[in-house]
């Protein structure tokens, strides 16, 4: 049986953007893209694509579909997934999606997944590298009524109906099994995602990607409403204060410093 895997990937500002170029627009409550720095696929999402492609490496008849919700520029994320080796790409691009919260995103993605059709597993990043909410993957599983295994480092199909999943725990690895269809999410422990090959880049460049607007997804307007509200967005101001601890001699000063640090609950 040929597997069908779906990867959800988001476009984010390049996390390598120099800190000095980071700007927000407090009125619009948005991050202002740094000029000259192209946005990229969110790194955890790219790792999720990598896990899906490893499964495809072992079972070449596997079909991998990549879905991204975002503006027209998110087309690059879909194309990047294709260049890594995915087979099909879908872009959810509609002004109505602008500013969607985690719930709306999960809802729109769930409708897109239903429209894509039968699948065996979904692959997401543990959280997006911009707002780090980590809500969409589990929300999507909930809306689809399927099990979710999160924060993984690897996955494989035991047979056509069961997935074995390695979950990263603070002091080890938990190994889980779940029946398909299942949603899985991944973390940096996956390791470095593959570089696209020239051949896949050429194929990806030629590949048509499917674009769905809100109307194509049959979103229920009563349902597609935000459940959260971004009240404020600001860059915290850090203040540095310097205090010189004096003492009779070095040992005395050291003791006073230790006391100070303990008072401040630092040690």
């Amino acid at each position, binding site marked *: 049986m040929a597997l069908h895997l779906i990867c959800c990937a988001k476009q984010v500002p390049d996390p390598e953007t120099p800190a000095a170029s980071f700007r927000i627009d407090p009125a619009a409550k948005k991050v202002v893209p740094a000029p000259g720095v192209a946005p990229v696929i969110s790194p955890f999402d790219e790792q999720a694509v990598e896990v899906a492609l490893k499964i495809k490496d072992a079972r070449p008849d596997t079909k991998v579909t990549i879905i991204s919700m975002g503006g027209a520029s998110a087309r690059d994320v879909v194309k990047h997934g294709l260049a890594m080796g995915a087979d099909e790409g879908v872009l959810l691009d509609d002004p109505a999606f602008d500013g969607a919260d985690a719930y709306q995103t999960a809802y729109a993605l769930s409708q897109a997944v239903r429209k894509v059709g039968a699948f065996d597993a979904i692959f997401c990043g543990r959280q997006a590298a911009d707002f780090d909410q980590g809500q969409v993957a589990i929300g999507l599983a909930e809306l689809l009524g399927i099990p979710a295994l999160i924060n993984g480092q690897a996955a494989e199909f035991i047979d056509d109906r069961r997935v074995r999943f390695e979950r990263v725990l603070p002091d080890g690895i938990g190994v889980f099994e779940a029946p398909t269809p299942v949603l899985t999410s991944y973390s940096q422990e996956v390791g470095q995602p593959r570089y696209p090959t*020239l051949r896949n880049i050429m194929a990806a460049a030629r590949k048509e990607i499917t674009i769905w607007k809100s109307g194509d997804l049959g979103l229920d307007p009563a349902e597609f409403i935000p459940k959260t509200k971004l009240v404020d967005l600001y860059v915290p101001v850090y203040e540095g204060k310097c205090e010189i601890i004096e003492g009779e001699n070095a040992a005395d000063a050291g003791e006073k410093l230790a006391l100070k640090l303990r008072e401040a609950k630092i040690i």
Partner: protein
Amino acid sequence: MELKLSEEQRMIIHNVRRFVREEIVPLERDLDPDAFELPAREQERLTAMVKAMGLYQMGIPKRYGGPGVDMITRTLAAEEMSQHRAGLYHPSYDVFGEEPPPPLFEATDYQRERYLLPLIRGEKRVFIGVTEPSGGSDPARAIQTKAVRDGDDWVINGSKMFNSWADRADFGLVFVRTNPKAGRQGISCFLVDTDTPGFVVKRLVHVLRSDYTTELAFEDMRVPATHLLGEEGQGFAIVNEWLTANRIPYSAVGIGVAVAAQKMAIEYAKHRETFGDVLANRQAIQWMLVDNELDIRTSRWLVLHAAQKADEGKPFRFEAAAAKVFATEAAGRVVDRSMQVHGGIGVTKDLPLERWYRELRIRRIGEGPSEVQRIIMARDLLSAAATSDLDSLI
């Protein structure tokens, strides 16, 4: 006018950019600031990665199993590959593969088997022997090394200067005089194995960069006639055509270094405070950054223009000369200004600026000095067939 890249071109360039950022730059933290080679293990690992990506030796034509990537893409990729400390003379430490000298693609079957294919497979290394102690700007006149026919061999006597890698290469393309009376038509190119009796590395010549060059002597060196590349007397045409084409990537590499220096200067200016404010708020500094940007953008435009003409199969000697002279001089200015923005730290070996500063000085001399590029351009401008640049653009 806007440079419109295809999706494919953009993806290739992003791929190279990411590779350099993630694989090359971090390695340099543990290397000597003047290193020009990677530890063998890293070299093998990264070369294997590039091969798997299908980006090894991008310039090799399709008929030789290469990817046959166009010149615009290669130019922009070269700009990315060089954005690190050793990038000027060893973009990405050559893990993208050194491209064989194009004249070898016209080699005989014997020469192809013996030289070209091993070069493509990475089993052999090559050096170039044009310059002699008597000069390099005007090789048609300066080449004095003589080859005399003797049966099935040519016997070569003379010397060469500034031959990079000749002490580590397996063979070289050596340009010698086969007919003393025929002027530039009297020069021929031979494929010379470095273990040929009479091939002598006289000394290592140390220069501004850590990667030295050599001086060679040929003492009754016998080279079989089958090692003549192209026709007898074609040597000058071969070297001319090849150096012209090489000016495009050569210039692009300089732009890459300039871009890297400019990025550093902008970052530093935003953080460094003097007299109660950051440097970025001082007009004197802002203008340096602006002048850097003007230099970079002008260079890029000139290089891409040459690359586009090359891709279209049009003559591009004039454009390549313009690109070479401007981009190498401009990159020198950009690194110089970026150093000034950095102050003292700019000249330390903690940062790559001092290395680029030294090495860029060579770029105005190597591969045809600035004066020679200007001579090439002046000849065309003053010739009967001269056209204005606008004519050549449209």
